[in-house]
């Protein structure tokens, strides 16, 4: 273990250690989940500090391999780590009161969120597919469990089962893909795989890569593999859905970038048409189906599938533009989607049988009764629809711009058309919030302080990225180099 350096792996290790601490304290704080949430938050802070400490070296372009080549510390991975940690911190804080309301105030929730984050961090800070597999499974298993966290509610457990069965199925593909890649390249290191793809691309290598992509596409929710997303996001507790929708997609896109743009970058022509069509299919199907949704959670789920489609546009573009576009879009997507789901969490009330409050009808006139919430939700929806001056607008702009620069005109046109269609269903919710008469006399829930703070933070993120995107875009431009 000569090459082992704890400092370099501290971001993931700190998360794991604090997750275990949370578990250790769980019996002492039965029924006071918030205390454990505090421990979890501390863990995320420590991990973020450890990441920040590595940043100066890696930010200067260093690419450090450690732990037998299993961990790669570079600016790309560290950036993703920070994004994931931010999502995690917001989720944890937002869950303090929400879990109490859902009567699922188990301290283990925070441990599982931390473990999931640890898995994702492991996954983005490596160029070895074995680590990707392990990280992927850690967070997937944690999410299966979190989906079924409100285990007294049939919908929650059913969606957990669906998520699990499809997830296990897709990981079967992923593992088989790894076996083929190992057979073809003699290693699971992306550097070696990339070399094999460039020098002697056998059919087995392609099929292996394809199977790995199926596994990743499932996690992201690309269209033929998106079946689970609406049901699972709707069935899962809303805070978990928020976490899933943002963190999973972020982590999976990091791997997708390293895999496709990094290792298989030289053979761009081979996979670009496939990704192009998948992207078109994903955007179009998701946005058309979303038009018919009346449940806000389901609507947001389809919206997240649609956004995966936009992100895939940039995957086909030239890496120097595309990677930057994807990274920027992911950050803004994280803020707006997290915010939108958490607004839904503030309104919805899940009881044992059904989930009232997620139906569009119960949002009618909400803006006049809970003004702050109405404004926040409208902001997030505007951003999701891509209306200036929000982050969502700039994100889409950067993506379409990179498509134009790479001469991917078809994708750009389809993307813009889709954005127009999508604006329809987002605005429908906004209309309901402000312009319709309330259907019930029932007073909506008060918004707890912790949740309000998270919403303010997310809204600030959306606005800041929309108004002053320059610094971040400059920074991201430098991360595109050296994915593997």
């Amino acid at each position, binding site marked *: *273990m000569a090459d*082992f350096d704890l400092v370099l*792996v501290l971001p*993931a290790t700190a998360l*794991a250690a604090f*997750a*275990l601490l949370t*578990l250790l304290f769980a019996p002492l704080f039965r029924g006071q989940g918030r205390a454990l949430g505090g421990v979890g938050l501390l863990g995320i802070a420590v991990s973020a500090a450890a990441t920040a400490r590595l940043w100066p070296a890696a930010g200067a372009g260093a690419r450090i391999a450690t*732990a*037998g*080549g*299993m*961990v790669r510390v570079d600016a790309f991975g560290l950036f993703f780590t920070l994004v994931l940690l931010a999502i995690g911190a917001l989720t944890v804080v937002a869950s303090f009161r929400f879990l109490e309301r859902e009567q699922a105030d*188990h301290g*283990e929730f925070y*441990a*599982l969120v931390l*473990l*999931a984050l*640890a*898995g994702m961090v*492991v996954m983005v800070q490596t160029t*070895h597919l*074995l*680590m990707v597999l*392990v*990280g992927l*499974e*850690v967070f997937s*298993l*944690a999410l*299966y*469990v979190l989906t*079924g*966290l409100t*285990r007294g509610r049939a919908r929650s*457990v059913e969606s*957990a089962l669906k998520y699990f069965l499809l997830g296990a199925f897709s990981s079967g593909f992923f593992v088989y893909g790894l076996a*083929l890649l190992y*057979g*073809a390249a003699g290693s699971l290191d992306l550097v070696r795989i990339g070399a094999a793809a460039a020098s002697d691309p*056998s*059919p*087995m290598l*392609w*099929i292996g890569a394809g199977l790995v992509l199926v596994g990743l596409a499932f996690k992201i929710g690309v269209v033929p593999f998106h079946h689970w997303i609406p049901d699972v996001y709707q069935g899962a507790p809303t805070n978990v859905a928020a976490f899933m929708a943002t963190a999973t997609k972020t982590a999976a896109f990091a791997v997708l970038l390293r895999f496709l743009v990094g290792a298989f970058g030289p053979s761009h022509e081979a996979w670009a048409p496939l990704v192009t069509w998948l992207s078109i299919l994903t955007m179009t199907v998701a946005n058309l189906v979303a038009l018919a949704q009346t449940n806000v959670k389901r609507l947001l789920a389809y919206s997240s599938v649609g956004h995966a489609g936009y992100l895939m546009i940039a995957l086909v573009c030239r890496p120097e533009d595309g990677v930057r576009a994807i990274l920027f879009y992911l950050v803004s997507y994280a803020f707006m989607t997290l915010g939108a789901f958490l607004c839904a969490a503030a309104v919805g009330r899940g009881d044992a049988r059904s989930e009232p409050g997620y139906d569009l009808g119960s949002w009618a006139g909400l803006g006049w009764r809970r003004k702050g919430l109405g404004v926040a939700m409208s902001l997030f929806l505007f951003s999701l629809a891509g209306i200036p001056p929000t982050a969502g607008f700039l994100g889409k702009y950067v993506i379409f711009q990179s498509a134009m620069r790479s001469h991917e005109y078809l994708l750009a046109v389809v993307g813009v058309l889709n954005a127009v269609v999508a604006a329809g269903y987002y605005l429908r919710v906004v209309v309901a919030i402000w312009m319709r008469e309330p259907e019930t006399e029932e007073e909506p829930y008060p918004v707890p302080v912790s949740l309000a703070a998270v919403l303010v933070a997310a809204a600030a993120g959306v606005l800041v990225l929309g108004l002053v995107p320059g610094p971040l875009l400059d920074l991201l431009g430098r991360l595109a180099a050296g994915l593997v």
Partner: protein
Amino acid sequence: MEAIAFYVLAVLAVASAIVVIVHRNPVMSALALAVNLVTIAGFYLVLRAQFVALLQVIVYAGAILVLIVFVIMLLNLREELKARSPGTFQKWLGPILALVFAVVLGRAMLAHAAPSFPAPVPGFGTAAALGIDLFSRFYYPFEVVSLLLVVAMVGAVLLAKRRL
């Protein structure tokens, strides 16, 4: 000798796998899976990966499958009443696509296979060889995989324990 063992194993493995996916009764499926797992261990033995073969029996047959069978019996699952409800995709398109996939996959893999296995390196497949590799090159994933077990443990308790 090895060739005979191999053919017997191949037939057994495929046959038991078919029983797993067609038998209506989950218990019989599970027992067929047990046979399948043991034949896979047999393959490992023939391929000289002795240590993995033993692990296969202990972990898969001895732990995972026992757990599955245990749950089947705990829930007292009976036979599935009818075949899967007829969605055209599931019933016809799925199998056809799977067949096409199998042919493509098989061809690609066969094209890549060496004509014969090289003579095994001394120490190949022993616990010592694996242990040295595992703890010199793969110690970090080995540590991370323990998180997987923690998640599984916490998750199983959280979901299945009668009273939390």
